[in-house]
């Protein structure tokens, strides 16, 4: 029989944990309840008019930026992960690469913004544009993609590699035909998580792409775009008439939240699905 003090301590731990859970629930609930009335077809498909109107260009802008970031970061991340798991030997070079990845993962997002401004916007002369923003976001999500791709590669049993090598396949043939097919779903999961992160970030695009109000959709990668997180930031902070801006802000917050949480849930479901399929 457990004592009263023990039971109350256990109860306290449970309460603290569930307080955190309730807070998450409350935040999501608040945004869903107050945003759902605003979000309808025309909100998603029309242009903004001042603080009111739709958010279509911001959705398109976010999709462009995220697509650009993934196109650059995915091949690089996959190549890094394959090198680190399949080829790298203990040594100075490998340690340096690992230190770089860890450092990159810890760089504050606003510093990525400064970096993007200095390198892509000014030095390369891309200007504040989709190109600058996508490249900046690509640098930011690179560590996420590398780490989860590595995890996916390591989950493939060594026996598969040994069998392939024993049959006379070269190392690359082994990786391509015996390892990658099993690791690709896990790598995709990682890249979806990266997409989620890129879609929600504001600080890096603040300095490299974002525009609040644009009359037309971008025509080339050198154009500025609107983006959901930046749109929300401006709506919430830069409008004196908050009565008008607040509903739009809630609607934008809901769309952004659904986009990011949807991507994350998708990634988690995908991962558990493939884990179950690939039980060795």
């Amino acid at each position, binding site marked *: 029989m*457990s004592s009263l003090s023990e039971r109350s301590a256990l109860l306290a731990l449970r309460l603290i944990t569930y307080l955190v859970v309730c807070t998450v629930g409350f935040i*999501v609930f608040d945004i869903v309840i107050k945003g759902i009335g605003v979000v309808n077809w025309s909100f998603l498909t029309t242009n903004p008019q001042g603080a009111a109107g739709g958010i279509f260009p911001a959705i398109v802008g976010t999709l462009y930026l995220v697509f650009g970031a993934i196109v650059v970061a995915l091949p690089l991340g996959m190549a890094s992960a394959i090198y680190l798991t399949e080829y790298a030997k203990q040594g100075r070079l490998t340690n340096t690469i690992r230190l770089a990845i860890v450092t990159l993962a810890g760089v504050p997002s606003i510093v990525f913004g400064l970096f993007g401004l200095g390198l892509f916007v000014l030095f390369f002369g891309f200007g504040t544009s989709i190109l600058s923003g996508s490249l900046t976001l690509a*640098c930011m999500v690179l560590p996420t993609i590398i780490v989860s791709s590595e995890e996916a590669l390591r989950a493939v049993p060594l026996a598969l590699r040994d069998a392939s090598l024993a049959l006379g396949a070269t190392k690359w043939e082994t990786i391509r035909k015996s390892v990658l097919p099993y690791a690709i779903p896990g790598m995709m999961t990682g890249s979806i998580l990266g997409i989620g992160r890129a*879609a929600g970030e504001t600080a890096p695009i603040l300095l490299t792409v974002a525009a609040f109000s644009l009359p037309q959709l971008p025509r080339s990668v050198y154009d500025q775009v609107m983006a959901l997180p*930046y749109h*929300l930031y401006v709506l919430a902070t830069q409008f004196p008439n908050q009565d008008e801006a607040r509903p739009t802000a809630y609607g934008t917050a809901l769309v952004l939240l659904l986009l*990011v949480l949807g991507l994350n849930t998708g990634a988690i479901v995908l991962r558990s699905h493939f884990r179950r399929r690939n039980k060795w």
Partner: protein
Amino acid sequence: MSFRHLQDRSVKYFLLAGASVSIVVVVLIFAFLIREALPYMKSPGLGSFFSERWAPTSPLKAGYGLLPLVAGSAMVTILATLIAIPFGVCGAVYIAEIAGKRERELLKPFIEMIAAIPSVVLGFFGLVVLAPIVKSAFGLPTGLTGLTGAVLLAFMAVPTIMSISEDAIRNVPRSYLDASLALGANRVQTIFKIVVPAAMSGIIASIMLGMGRVVGETMAVIMVTGNAAQFRFTPLVQIRTMTATIAAEMGEVTNGSTHYQALFWVGIVLLFVTFCINLVALRVLRTYRRA
């Protein structure tokens, strides 16, 4: 050498090139921050940073004192960490040692979901919901204070602390627990006197990684802390962090101006601080994993 083997060789270097991009990016980050910031050292010189006055746009005499910004960041970070520790660590203990298997599998993804919520959404929530609560609770003229920012950032640090601490707690050998329980200690005594101390280095690392995340956070703080650069050490006034300063002012400066260079210096300080925190945290984490 056959084509197959030639291909096999070249692929390796191709992949190595991909892997080296991370190094290149890190080097470029440091290089470009320094490149843009460097001219500041000649004029007005680094000495100007040690002042209590951040007023880069003042028409009479511009002030580039970093002290209020550093103090703002430090206060919010420390306060947020102190608030986050009990929640993060208790949550980790609960999930690792007390919750049943099903409960754990529901709780974990739910709490990890916090990490996925974009910071601008949390900042918006803080602005609309949390700030009015702080305002009325303390009878303040505005709810946009250092404390509001700290509460919001604490919330963002919880998932980091919780998941890494939980990992550390679950790695404590089962035999420690069994020995303690066999000696007649109850579950709570075992948890707090045996398991938590054994996992302490992992827990400390988790707290530091949480801090690293908090220092660098931009959007949540810029929206709820009021952004007045004051050199005062109380959480119930408006404060301004280093991250918020860069985000708020970079849009309005002329490229290459003294103000622009000063903002890059703020970025360098920020990068240096997070780099050190993360490096120490990872060292701690590595020693405990080896042990």
